[in-house]
Each structure stands twice: as C-alpha cells, then as structure tokens.
C-alpha cells in the first residue's frame, strides 16, 4: 500500500470508489436491456432470413446494412438530439437502450443466421421423414444444433455490446466513462481516475471473457461434428 501511495492518491480512490460502483450499475443496466432486446431482434431477423419471408426479408436486409455501417455514437446523437424535433422525446437511458438494440440486433442476427445455416438441410428432411412437423423439427432438431454453433459468436457480441455502452457518456449518461471524465475534469486526478476506469472494465468484462472462452472450448471438444 505504501508503495502504491507514492504514486497514487489512495484516499482519493477510496473516496470516489462508490461513484464508480454506481456508474457501473448504469453501464450494466443499459448493457443488460440492450443485449436482451438485441437477442430478441436478432432472433426474429434470423428467422425471417432463414424462412425467406418476402418483404420482411428485404426490410431486415436494409436494417442490417444500416445498423452495421454506422457508428453507435452517431445513432445515439440522432436518437437523443434529432428525434425530439419530431416530437419523439426519449430519456437518455431509453435512447441508449434503443441505440444499443439497433446496433446489436444486426450482430445477433448474423450469429443466429450462421448457426442455422451450419445445420445441414438433410437434418430437416430426415426429421420430417420421421413424421415431425416443420415446427417440431425446428425446435427439436435444427435449433439446438444451430444454437451450439452460434454460442461463440453470441458471446463475442455480448462482450462487444458491453464495451460499446462506453459510448453512452456522449449523450450525458452517467456511466463509467462519464464519471472518469468528470473526475479528470474537476480534480485533475487523472492517474487515479483512469486506473479505476480500467479496473472497473476489467472486473466487468474479464469474467465474461473467460467464461466465453471456456464455453467455446467445451463446445468445440464436445462438438458433435461427424
């Protein structure tokens, strides 16, 4: 501790640690809802693409291109500053969750789609020839296999989306980034503020990242490929 105290203002860090905890709460809340809705949107989009439902399929393609080729920060600026001009006034939290979902939905769709495509067509045929209805075959045979293939990509997307939440400080949400910026601006305790920022993201993301690696390895070794 004494060694640390030479470099860092430990008291300062202790004093402001609760602020970081609170800010981490904001980050986690936004990430949680954003990821949940991204999964739902992504699943629906992938289903539309898999069954090639006309019209909806084209709409999904347009959405995916728009979502994948624009930055989240710009999406947020449009939602937060632009939309109120046409009477749509959302709080910063709602904008952040909507923005994250708009971005994440296309990434999740891609993950689900590649999983579904990896299941050979004959799996569906052999299920159907055993008397399964198409819906039963999807639920019992196709989807479980597709999900196993999708999981690494889904995990990567979860980590990606949590990282992306750092952008919401741009629309004045008091997340981790925002607090760090504040402390630097007010107290000039740059080293401490930045160190706590890095630590906060490590604590948040390292366990998820390790979990994802373990999950992927388990799936690969238990892989049921031929």
């Amino acid at each position, binding site marked *: 501790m004494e060694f640390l105290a030479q470099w860092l203002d430990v008291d300062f860090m202790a004093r402001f640690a609760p602020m970081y905890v609170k800010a981490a709460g904001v980050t986690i809340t936004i990430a949680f809802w954003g990821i949940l809705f991204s999964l739902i949107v992504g699943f629906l989009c992938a289903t539309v693409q898999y069954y090639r439902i006309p019209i909806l399929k084209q709409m999904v393609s347009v959405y995916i291109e728009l979502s994948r080729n624009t930055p989240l920060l710009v999406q947020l600026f449009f939602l937060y500053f632009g939309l109120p001009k046409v009477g749509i006034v959302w709080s910063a939290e709602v904008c952040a969750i909507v923005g994250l979902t708009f971005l994440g939905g296309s990434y999740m769709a891609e993950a689900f789609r590649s999983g579904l495509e990896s299941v050979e067509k004959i799996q569906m045929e052999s299920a159907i020839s055993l008397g399964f209805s198409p819906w039963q075959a999807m639920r019992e045979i196709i989807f479980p296999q597709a999900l196993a293939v999708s999981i690494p990509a889904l995990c990567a997307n979860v980590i990606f989306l949590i990282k992306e939440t750092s952008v919401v400080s741009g629309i004045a949400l008091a997340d981790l980034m925002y607090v760090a910026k504040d402390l630097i601006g007010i107290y000039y305790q740059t080293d401490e503020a930045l160190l706590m920022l890095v630590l906060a993201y490590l604590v948040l993301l390292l366990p998820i990242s390790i979990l994802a690696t373990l999950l992927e390895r388990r799936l690969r070794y238990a892989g049921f490929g*031929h």
Partner: protein
Amino acid sequence: MEETVQLQVQGLIKRFGNETVLNGISFSVHKGEVMVVLGPSGCGKSTLLRCINGLEAADGGRILLDGEPIISGGKNMIRMRQKIGMVFQSYDLFPHKNILENITLAPMKVQKRSKQEAREEAEQLLNRVGLWEKRNAFPRQLSGGQKQRVAIVRALCMHPEVMLFDEVTAALDPEMVREVLDVMLELASQGMTMIIVTHEMQFARAIADRVLFLDRGTVMEESTPEKFFSAPQTKRAQEFLNTFTFEKPNH
C-alpha cells in the same frame, strides 16, 4: 406372400426446371414385397423415393399408400409419413442426441408414446442389430456402418408399413457394407415391405422379389431378379449390367 397392393405409383411426373426427372412412372408394391430399383446414376431413383415420402412434390400422377393419396404438403402428410420409414445415404443421425434419444425422439414427440415404452422398444431393436452396448454413445463415436444401422432402427421404431432405402451403403467403407445389408435381409425375411435403391448388384439379386429398372425417368424393365440379371430384355439394361462386370484384358 399376400397379394394386397400396399403402395401404388401411377404416372408419376417430376420436373426440376426444364428437366423432367421422372416421366410417367407406374408400378405397385404388394404387402411384404421387396422392390429393388436399379438404374444408372441420374436416372431418377432417389427422386422417386423422395416423392414417395413427400419430400418432393410431384408434378403429375399419383402415389397411393393403402389407397390413400400422398400429397406433399397435404393435410395428411404427417400421418402418412409415419407409415413410411426412410433411410438416407448420409446416415444423418441427430448429432446433438445420443443413440437412444435419436431413436426415441420421434416416437415420443410425434406419436406421443411414453418414454419408457419407446425406450424399451428402442433397446430391443438395438439389440437385434447388435448395437445395444452403444445406446448411450453419441453419433460421432460410431462407425459409418453402425450409424447406418441406428438410422434403420430409428425409422423402424415408428412402426412403418413401408421402408425406403436410398443407397444406404454408398457412403460406407466396403467392410461395413455387409453389416448393414444383413440388417436389411433380416427385415425382408420378416415380411417388411421395402423399396431399395442400391448399387450392390449381388445384394439386389439376393433380396429382391422384383426389380424395377429405370433409365432417364422412365421404367425400362420390370421383372424378377432371376430374369433381370440373367436375361435382361432391353439394351439399356444389358449395358448397365455390363458396367458391373470386369474381364481381364488379353495381351
């Protein structure tokens, strides 16, 4: 052999784009009969089986099972399919289920049979094909021949009236072909109605009650195996059979 007609195919036509793959196929299979379908590759044999099972919609003609029409996508399709078992070339077991689950999934989910009953029958059938020890293994742990025997059991467990075999030994190593063919021979001896597409000529001769020879989407010849293999009537059939015999070249 009983003389009731079980499956009737009448003037079946199937096109893919401009290409007519099946051009008015007609035949009937009696109960307990084994029909072997032969022909050069691309003659429409596999398509024929897929039409019978409703995986492909016919463009013309009718298929009747016990007098009831099979219409791909029709209302009765799920019920009809349970009467028809099909085994594919690529022994496509469900990779995420173990062997017992592979076999009992459809009886439980489709026929709503009890887990215990389905399981008992599955174990019995596995025992008959000599794979009872593998009941808890996963498909990837089995050899090709073992997988194919499981695929046959999986179809049998649905109590089908007719079994369709689509080149089930084509993807197997030669030493595994026998174990699969033996299972099929036993099935035939128990009176199962079967339609078999195969390239194993000796096996075809041994198992068939009747032979159907297809070429370019039409039935060229329909006869007994003895007649077909010893004295084929058409030139196409003679040429086809010749491709399976080899002579030592004279130097």
